């Protein structure tokens, strides 16, 4: 059964069941992924999946359900379960949205990217791999070496006449190289999402990943104490990703974010500006309409240290008497409606990374964080997470450091940012939903413990 036939049958049966307003959200994704290991194809995946989410108002209350099968049986399943769900949910009501006045034209689909063939993608990996092994004899292998590409299509159809549709595609690359020197084993990674296949330079990618791994060899211990910390853009981005839910109005309304009642107040140093931009051409989460069908637009969330707005969907906006900011979010058709950023980033400044390093008399450079899903508490802002990086002395990177933890509080950290780099990049960290970017940041002080 095709989507429109399915929608017509579903809405008709829904009406007979007693649903007043109804919505069908559809997602379809085609993906390709492959991994290479020492010249051999280690994995090769192709897929085509679709699914639908149903929302419907029954007895004045919203019910949800989803299915990956578009058949008669699923119509019954969707309606009966949504009906039962609507009657047990006690929250204030969501509404089916009739539509925004206008929608931007989305340009998130690259025709040239679609034309890139599977052999071309495999060749890129082979090229990178060749350079990886050539680059240094301490390279022993790769622990992750994968490429993925995806095309997604989503549509939102409802009984109030809204009919929206959007397409997007991207290509992702993740390379992690293992190096060994004596008994010491380290790995270093390169990762990227892009729509521009031509921009991927195999030699450059191999060099970056291998250098990243090699630079960590010869790790030493340093004193455990408070240091000035330079968070490289990727480490800063992954930390920011973990704490990005603090900007959700759903969180503040549930008492789970300390930014409650802080709109209009200073929450960070006056040099810090945070922007959410769903219109970015290269943004992984770019979109013209959110999961409720609300038109999206670029928004400043924190301006010169002051909280300008929280992120809202329709329900949270209604509670506060404001307009939705277009941040209604469902992880997929399987998720219920919540709030999440799109492409959210800290505004960069002019300084190069090298200039930031040179400005530090004594400190620690952090290049990678792990354990963010467990060692960080977005409610209290406290974090204590594993880190890898380097010791900086007299403006120079002196040595790689043994495994560390850095500990602090994110709300305090926002007020302790001393300097920003020009090197804004989006992080491959998805502890919380949102594609999150940051330049490298100098933090006045964090507690560093060294193994």
């Amino acid at each position, binding site marked *: 059964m095709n989507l429109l036939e399915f929608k017509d049958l579903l809405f008709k049966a829904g009406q007979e069941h007693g649903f007043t307003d109804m919505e069908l959200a559809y997602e379809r994704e085609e993906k390709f992924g492959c991994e290479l290991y020492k010249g051999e194809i280690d994995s090769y995946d192709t897929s*085509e999946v679709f699914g639908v989410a149903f929302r419907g108002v029954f007895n004045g209350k919203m019910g949800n359900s*989803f*299915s990956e099968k578009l058949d008669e049986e699923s119509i019954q399943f969707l309606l009966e*379960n949504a009906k039962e769900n609507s009657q047990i949910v006690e929250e204030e009501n969501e509404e089916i949205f009739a539509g925004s006045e206008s929608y931007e034209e989305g340009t998130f689909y690259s025709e040239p990217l679609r034309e890139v063939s*599977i052999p071309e993608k495999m060749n890129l990996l082979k090229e990178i791999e060749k350079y990886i092994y050539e680059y240094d004899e301490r390279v022993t292998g790769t622990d992750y070496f994968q490429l993925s590409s995806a095309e997604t299509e989503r549509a939102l159809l409802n009984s109030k006449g809204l009919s929206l549709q959007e397409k997007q595609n991207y290509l992702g690359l993740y390379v992690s190289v293992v190096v060994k020197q004596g008994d010491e084993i380290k790995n270093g990674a390169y990762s990227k999402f892009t729509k521009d296949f031509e921009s991927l330079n195999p030699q450059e990618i191999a060099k970056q990943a291998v250098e990243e791994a090699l630079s960590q060899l010869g790790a030493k211990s340093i004193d455990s104490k408070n240091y000035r910390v330079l968070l490289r853009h990727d480490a800063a981005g992954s930390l920011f990703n973990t704490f990005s839910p603090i900007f959700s109005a759903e969180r503040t309304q549930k*008492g789970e974010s300390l930014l409650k009642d802080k709109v209009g107040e200073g929450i960070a140093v006056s040099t810090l500006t945070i922007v959410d931009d769903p219109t970015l051409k290269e943004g992984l989460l770019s979109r013209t309409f959110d999961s409720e069908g609300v038109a999206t637009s670029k928004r400043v969330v924190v301006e010169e240290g002051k909280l300008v707005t929280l992120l809202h969907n329709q329900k949270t906006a209604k509670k506060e008497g404001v307009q939705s900011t277009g941040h209604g979010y469902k992880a997929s058709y399987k998720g219920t409606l919540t709030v999440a950023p799109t492409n959210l980033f800290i505004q960069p400044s002019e300084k190069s990374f090298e200039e930031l390093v040179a400005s530090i008399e004594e400190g620690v450079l952090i290049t990678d964080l792990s354990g963010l899903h467990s060692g960080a508490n977005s409610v209290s802002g406290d974090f204590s997470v594993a880190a890898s990086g380097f010791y900086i002395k007299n403006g120079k990177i002196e040595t790689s450091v043994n495994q560390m933890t850095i500990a602090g509080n994110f709300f305090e950290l926002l007020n302790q940012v001393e300097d920003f780099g020009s090197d804004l990049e989006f992080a491959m960290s998805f502890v919380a939903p949102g594609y999150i970017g940051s330049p490298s940041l100098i933090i006045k002080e964090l*507690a560093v413990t060294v193994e």
Partner: protein
Amino acid sequence: MLSKSVIEDVLNAALETGGDFSEVFVEDRYTNNLSLQGGKVDSSMSGRDFGVGIRIFKGLQSVYAYTTDSSREGLLKAARNAAHAINGERIIQPQAFVNQLVVSEHPIPLNPREVEKIRKVNVMKKAYEIAKNYHSLIQQVTVRYMDEEQNVLIANSEGKFVEDRRVRSRIAIQSIAADGNRMQNGFYGPGAHSGFEFLENLNLEHYATESSRIAVAMLGADPCPSGKFPVIIDNEFGGVIFHEACGHGLEASAVAKNNSVFANRIGEKVASNLVTYIDDGTLQNEWGSINIDDEGEKVGKNVLIENGILKGYLIDKFNSRRMEMPSTGSGRRQNYRFAPTSRMTNTFIAPGASTREEIISNTENGIFARYMGGGQVNPTTGDYNFAVMEAYLVKNGKIDKPVRGATLIGNGPKTLHLVDMVGNNLAHGAGMCGASSGSLPVNVGQPTLRVSEMTVGGRKGEE
């Protein structure tokens, strides 16, 4: 779920280009996820996942395709897309199916699909009331409930044709204690390979109270000091540390390519004599238990480390080729969207002789990690990190003040040698484990034990 003749055709099409093995995994899964916050149900989602995964091997090459299009044409297209990667001439035909019957070792008296949702809500509300009323500092309690019925069919070109049903239920209670600008979390999430009877028989009083007690205890805690300490890790979910620090390194996905510190070391001493580490997917109705793995192999009890000596690995079908060792029934996947790989089920440190009291009274100056949060490991280096949800200082053989924000870091293989006391109180805790084949229900377990030295990270600095 799909007719035998369609499956046969798909297995056959998958071998057209020279594959030496093909497999079809069909999944029909029904789930319910409910959430309750501030005493009210704030979301309830029900869904049906239906999809098919097709896998082809040729030597040490593995190809995977999956689709939600379960029509004959859709499946044949997916099989041919995958076969395209192999690019040779047919070498074999699939063998005739031999029906294999699975007798479930995990009785399900009350399938949650047959239970009205309002009964589920009632259990959640009861848990909420207990947790909320524990203390006036409890500001927010969230109770989540999930159940699923996962029906799987696995068929392959070696003649395997087997079906199984897995039913799981879980409740997760999260308490937030707040005082002024400070907030702390407590969490407890018991789950089982069981039906709704698991929740009706569950000691809610215990789990809900513990969740809130942890949050309140940590609210009054000072920041944890940092430095090197002996660390006592309590039983049950404390086992997460060995799950990360050594379990993942024993998975064939890391071992087969020599990317694990445990590769090629069978028969060698890799841990203190006190450490026996076991993965047992057969434990009745436990959260991580299964009858057959997601490659249709019978799950078993695998002794990985015995009295400090490395005995075995967790091996799936594909990695068994590279390692030239048989599958241990450890091929698992989150759903049809993932090719299976070697994963844990219920993994635990076997009990020793000491009592918890003995372990504490033998520790002069250390940390007692009563409840662990989550953690992660880099299987290549063995470096791990963990959050401790509830921690205390130990002074002169006694539990002293609570401390918050503790993180444990270290290196798995080194830590295994430093286990110097193992208790007699083995218990298991439910968790979700994420890796390349997705997020899976697993149990972690251990008795109370002590590691003679671990690096503790905290905000307070060294004492």
